[in-house]
């Protein structure tokens, strides 16, 4: 069954400040204390229907292949780049990792991840003048892992295995400078995905 790829498709429908066009009588408005909001609204059932609708898989922006190693095992995998979205304070990268064959393959502990953390901070987004890496963050002060530095990542942890369907992955990276229309995406062991269009 084809699946709706709603993932990470941020609606981002933040309203700009605007004058009120709400002409309903005051009694029909919220009787509770006003909840200031700039977010758009939608009927709940419509949102349920949209988000949980039967799947339609949009085409990936780029598909590249490569080999990861788990121990001594070299495994062909495929990476689909699904979205590179430039926001004011960050860049969102969404991608999918899948087996290049019909077989499920091991990915956890592979060469694609950072040793010890299994996250995918090795992913890179390249603009014309910069190389962006995912944000990382440190553990709690004084905690067991305090001395280990930034053990955690604003990016996906590798799954244990992937099949032909593929696991959805993400990374939050610093914002781009300028307004590039295309970027390259790099992953350890994987052929570069060049010329990936950027959405805003």
């Amino acid at each position, binding site marked *: 069954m084809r699946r709706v790829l709603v993932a*990470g498709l*941020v609606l981002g*429908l933040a309203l700009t400040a605007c004058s009120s066009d709400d002409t309903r009588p005051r009694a029909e408005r919220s009787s509770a*204390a006003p909840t200031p909001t700039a977010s758009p609204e939608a009927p*709940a059932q419509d949102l*349920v229907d949209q988000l949980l609708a039967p799947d339609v898989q949009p085409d990936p922006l780029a598909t590249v292949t490569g080999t990861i190693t788990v121990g001594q095992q070299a495994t062909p995998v495929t990476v689909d780049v699904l979205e590179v979205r430039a926001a004011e304070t960050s860049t969102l990268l969404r991608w999918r990792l899948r087996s290049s064959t019909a077989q499920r393959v091991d990915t956890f502990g592979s060469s694609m991840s950072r040793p010890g953390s299994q996250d995918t901070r090795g992913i890179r987004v*390249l603009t014309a003048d910069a190389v962006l890496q995912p944000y990382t963050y440190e553990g709690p002060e004084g905690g*067991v892992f305090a001395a280990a530095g930034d053990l955690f990542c604003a990016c996906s942890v590798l799954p244990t295995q992937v099949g032909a369907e593929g696991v959805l992955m993400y990374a939050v990276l610093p914002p781009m400078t300028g307004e590039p229309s295309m970027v390259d995406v790099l992953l350890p062991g994987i052929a570069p995905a060049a010329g990936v269009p950027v959405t805003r």
Partner: protein
Amino acid sequence: MVRDLRKRGAVGLALLAVLWSPVAAVGQSPAPGPSGGEVPVVGTFSYNSGNNDAEPEIRGAVHGVRRVPGGTAVYYSLGVAPGETFDAVRTMPTAGLAEAYTAGDAFAVRVLDPRGLQLYLPLNGPQGCLCSMVYDFGQESGRLAIGWAVLPELPAKVQTVSVLIGYGSVEDVPVEEGPLLPEVQTTPLLLGGGWPALPMDQISAVSDQRLFVRTLVRRTADRKSTVTTSETAGKVDEALSADVLFAVGSATLSPAARSTLQQVAERLRARAAGPVTVVGHTDSTGDSAANQALSEARARAVRDALQDGAGAGVTFQASGKGETQPVADEATPDGRQANRRVTVTYAVKPGS
């Protein structure tokens, strides 16, 4: 700013854009009803249940990141398509050793402030996580169950954040004021049925909210990887590639080094607060003592060049660490190249 959803090419989003009513003004909200009412949406997400493509896709939306007394509330909903098997326990990662949470906590809700370089996690107090439990989501498919978490208070200047939720993320989320209303006491709470009543009394019982704030690290490099910059709140570390700055085995700056160091000096002049630390590093090729001497000489060379460019208002300390502090695998050429570097570290002026 309204984005053109139709460019995204995903089924249903164009319809959602049409359904969105532009008449809601800042400061007012359409009357939400107990069922079928309108709900705010600031972003959607999806990820594989259990981070496993053999399991259904979890889909959901973030409905608000909102300042409440003593904290920040994150509201979201999630579910799976009709007919799929919904295992609520698999909707979120399980708490690991580094986490203060317990099994069943829907703790994987984090707010990332890219400008302030801070990451916020759900508060955990005497009565446990100030967040939903995964069991609250129920066991049925074809519906969206509401989840929530209360995180530390965000600084007043924070206006836009990213939300890391489960195994996914949502970008560009505005920070708004006040809890979502009406509040109801229902489990599972489904989208359109109101919003969870937040445990306001438990917020004040959290002894130290700083325990739930993490330092975020931002890393960028120029395209040639001449300079890799790591920045946290208040501190910058610039790693300069020794291969660009120097010839092999030499501590004499190359012609190519001058422009790079001039740019670094300009940043120091603009942002550095207090002394700047310059440290030379080598790979482990060759004699250790020679590497130590080389790293010290290189650090002095970089310091002198930066001092010229940054001016008398910036002070420096220079030293060498030889091959003792590698940052990459010495067994590979790329790793050795990364280890051959000079680092420039400084505190930054507030607001710079």
